[in-house]
């Protein structure tokens, strides 16, 4: 069967089961409830004053009685500095565990060392919002026997609620924790800020291990993770490389192209009619998107406009704007640098939120629904405004769905910023290799060679034109780009589906096929 974007989706996929095709961003939400059954969280019991402390990560893992075919989950708040995922999987492999489903909220290039375990049958399936580096290449080549699932940050919470991701063991790294498992990422030498993506795992996993390089006196404050969900606690020498966990302060790019696109985007936002008193705002941490914040800050000061809240993955630019009084609060599901962690610790108006509050479509309203403006990146965008943020120009997986489709569906104004081509590779084109976010959620595209408004937003187009901004038809832009780069040959694939891209509501928006080498 075909989904609403005309992409062929099989009824059934070995290793996943039956698939439901994407029907539009709000078709399922409009009903007001989720039809799929939810699974109950486990109930456990502990005797008073019994100890949860284990001497080694291996001891803790052994105590959880791991078995082949289990699902193990992790969070990705340690980003490029993470050692816990690789160390844990290595221990499981040493214990002879096979056929593991790896459910990490995301995977980065820090996880390249997992490749041997993908090849030897230790890991046979992956659920994640993003996959990069060697792993992304290998899975696109079909290294895993079962198809992987790419979900959004909000979609992951839904997956856990419905038991699609049925976590047997959650291993949660923290930069500070106490003997009972109360844990936080806001302080300690490996501080990484919010633990927004880890909380759902602690609530639903059959067994939960907290790993820290910093045991503090009971009770650990603040409690991002609370003790009533935690089975075991381990202190290790290191949870990863602190310089890569929080690489100092998120620097605004100096790349002239990113800055130019950011400047154009800020102008678009200013003239859109959405930058009004009390607006809420989110930007991605990527080069051009983050730089937009710098220009928005300038405009807010110039026009004396105050916003309400900053949402999402938070950078030091967001913290600066909070401290300057430009916004009244920050809701933080993921913190990108050290300054953000300490702000989260000290500033009562900088609030940690779990992923479900951030972006789960199936509850009584996540915060992305309250977004006025979001600025997002793209690896590719097509003439229907569909965005690819997951597969690169060679067809490998080298990105993350993240909160892209969550925020795009919620925000009043979704701005995509990207260059129109990179090197010789066209970015704005007729057809993208993989759709992650449907075009209906994207309002305006800003590139160095033109600004294009989604035809379903005529009033926005008028506002921009009235503001003196030249608006281009996206088909014309795509043609112009092709005129410069030439027509790129599409990526060659076999018929085998190696992965699926879930939309936030659980339907399948696209499939990823095996790349031909």
């Amino acid at each position, binding site marked *: 069967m075909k989904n609403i974007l005309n992409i062929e989706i099989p009824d059934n996929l070995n290793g996943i089961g039956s698939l439901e095709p994407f029907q539009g961003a709000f078709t399922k939400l409009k009903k007001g409830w989720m039809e799929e059954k939810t699974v109950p969280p486990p109930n456990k019991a502990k005797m008073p004053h019994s100890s949860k402390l284990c001497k080694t990560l291996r001891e803790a893992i052994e105590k959880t009685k791991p078995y082949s075919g289990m699902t193990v989950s992790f969070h990705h708040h340690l980003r490029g500095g993470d050692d816990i995922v690789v160390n844990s999987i290595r221990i499981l492999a040493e214990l002879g565990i096979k056929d593991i489903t790896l459910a990490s909220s995301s995977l980065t290039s820090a996880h390249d060392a997992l490749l041997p375990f993908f090849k030897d049958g230790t890991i046979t399936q992956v659920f994640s919002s993003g996959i990069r580096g060697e792993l992304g290449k290998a899975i696109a080549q079909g290294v895993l026997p079962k198809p992987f699932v790419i979900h959004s940050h909000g979609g992951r919470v839904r997956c856990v609620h419905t038991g699609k991701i049925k976590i047997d063991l959650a291993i949660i790294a923290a930069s500070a924790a106490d003997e009972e498992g109360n844990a936080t990422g806001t302080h300690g030498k490996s501080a990484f800020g919010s633990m927004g993506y880890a909380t759902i795992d602690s609530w639903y996993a059959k067994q939960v291990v907290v790993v820290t390089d910093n045991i503090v006196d009971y009770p650990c404050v603040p409690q991002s993770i609370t003790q009533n969900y935690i089975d075991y606690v381990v202190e290790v020498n290191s949870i990863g490389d602190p310089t890569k966990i929080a690489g100092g302060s998120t620097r605004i790019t100096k790349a002239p192209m990113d800055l130019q696109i950011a*400047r154009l985007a800020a102008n678009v936002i200013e003239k859109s009619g959405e930058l009004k008193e009390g607006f809420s705002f989110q930007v991605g941490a990527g080069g051009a998107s983050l730089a937009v914040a710098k220009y928005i800050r300038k405009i807010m000061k110039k026009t004396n406009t105050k916003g309400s809240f900053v949402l999402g993955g938070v950078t030091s630019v967001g913290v600066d704007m909070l401290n300057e009084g430009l916004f009244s609060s920050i809701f933080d599901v993921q913190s990108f640098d050290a300054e953000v962690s300490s702000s989260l610790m000290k500033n009562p108006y900088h609030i940690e939120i779990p992923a479900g509050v951030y972006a789960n479509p199936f509850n009584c309203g996540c915060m992305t629904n309250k977004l006025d403006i979001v600025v997002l990146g793209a690896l590719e965008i097509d003439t229907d405004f569909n965005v690819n943020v997951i597969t690169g120009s060679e067809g490998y997986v080298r990105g993350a769905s993240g909160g892209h489709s969550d925020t795009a569906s919620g925000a009043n104004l979704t701005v995509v910023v990207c260059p129109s081509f990179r090197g010789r590779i066209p970015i704005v084109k007729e057809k993208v290799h993989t759709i992650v976010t449907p075009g209906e959620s994207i309002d305006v595209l800003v590139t160095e060679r033109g600004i294009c408004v989604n035809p379903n937003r005529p009033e926005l187009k008028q506002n921009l034109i009235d503001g003196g901004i030249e608006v281009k038809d996206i088909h014309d832009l795509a043609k112009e780009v092709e005129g410069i780069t030439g027509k790129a040959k599409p990526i060659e694939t076999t018929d085998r589906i190696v992965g699926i891209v879930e939309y936030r509501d659980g339907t399948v928006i696209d499939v990823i096929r095996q790349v031909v080498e």
Partner: protein
Amino acid sequence: MLYIPGNNPAMLQQGSVYGADGILLDLEDAVALNQKDSARILVSHMLQYISYEGCEVTVRVNHIDTPFGLEDLQQIVPLQPNALRLPKVETVEEITRIIKVIEEIEDKHGLPHDKMKVHVMIETALGVQNVYEIAQYSDRIDAISIGGQDLAADMQLVKSTDGIGIDYARKQIVMAAKACKIDVFDTVYVDTENEEGLREEAEYIKKLGFTGKAIINPRQIEIVNEVFTPTDLEIRKAAKIVKAFERNKAEGIGVFAVDGKMVDAPVVQRALRVLEMADIEVSEL
């Protein structure tokens, strides 16, 4: 006016997207001596392939008395960029000779003499002394610019950032340009990290009467544009003056007052110039 090194494909293909009013594709100082052929050929191909729409394209060629200058003209003149920028012009004899060569090439290709403009760069003490005669030599010359680095070297100045040594030259060159009613562009600001220094210098040379400033990094565009773009307040003031002038003109009054200040013809001229820089037509007022 953004300088782009002539042998750098990545920068050449993106030159027009940064919001500069013009780009200067440089075959001269930004290109190594053993890559002059390479840059010349690359710029020739780029000019024919990339649409630099919305951006004035100028090519800076090498001086005619270098081993590269004549070949630059042979290759670039037939492509007729908006303008050619001639470096280190010192005497009327030189400019006479160069324009003769340009026009011979144009004749050979059946091209008109009045389409492509010529910018002269004054970069030596002798050039500063002769600037008016050079600038008024031909109608094709529609801009002069000062090359601060070379001039400082020629004047044997100790390295300094305050620009005191070239201050006289700046003023002399502005005066020559104004006398010929052509544009005049200031030299580059080399410290791309120092945004405040760039802003101060841009403000200073704007006061001297320069039309614009050459820049070497796209990041400098925003600051120079900010300095040279009239503020909302300036535009409102100018619009008020021009409107009052139009009203009074109908009644035959030449001198009048706006907000208690005397307005006469020169004030109106300046107000019109502000509106022109802000891209506002008088008929729109």
